[in-house]
């Protein structure tokens, strides 16, 4: 029998997802790193659901705004709980979060809703009435 090293590990290791740092356009005046929150977007018949992961951000330190058809989400992390700690091993870099999305005219900007729970923010972007699929009656 061949006892060579053909055995495959039957359990695949979870891959650590690298956090992407925000590409700065306007330069920051705050000496803190900013990361792009990992995002999933789902579409339903009447809205887009945007889910962003921002661990360590609470309701009071998240800012969601729409300006010039751009939706911006920013989250601030409380750095004080890391003060005085010497890193021995780090995978998870601590930093603030920022991400922007351009909104098409199909989104009703007046009715955007946001909810934050356990460091995950869920945004509901309702479709404008005119953008919803409709059936046209043939006479």
């Amino acid at each position, binding site marked *: 029998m061949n006892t060579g090293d053909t055995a495959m590990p039957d359990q695949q290791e979870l891959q650590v997802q690298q956090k992407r740092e925000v590409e700065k356009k306007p330069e920051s005046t705050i000496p803190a790193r900013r990361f792009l929150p990992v995002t*999933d977007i789902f579409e339903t018949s009447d809205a887009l659901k945007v889910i962003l992961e921002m661990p360590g951000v609470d309701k009071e330190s998240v800012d969601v705004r729409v300006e010039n058809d751009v939706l911006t989400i920013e989250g601030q992390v409380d750095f004080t709980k890391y003060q005085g700690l010497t890193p021995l091993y780090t995978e998870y870099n601590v930093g603030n979060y920022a991400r922007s999305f351009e909104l098409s005219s199909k989104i009703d900007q007046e009715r955007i809703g946001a909810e934050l729970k356990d460091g995950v923010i869920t945004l509901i972007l309702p479709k404008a009435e005119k953008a919803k699929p409709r059936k046209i009656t043939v006479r």
Partner: protein
Amino acid sequence: VWGVFDRTFSIPIQIEPDGIRAEYRDGILALHIPRAESQKPRTIKIG
């Protein structure tokens, strides 16, 4: 993407298992694992 998180660590020092504290807030789990008494640095007086 959603699912379950699972991670195991082996700790290279003696710890105080009864003294472990865990805190979960805003999606971050923090564990405080105290060293065992025998592992703490101590000063030895030269007589």
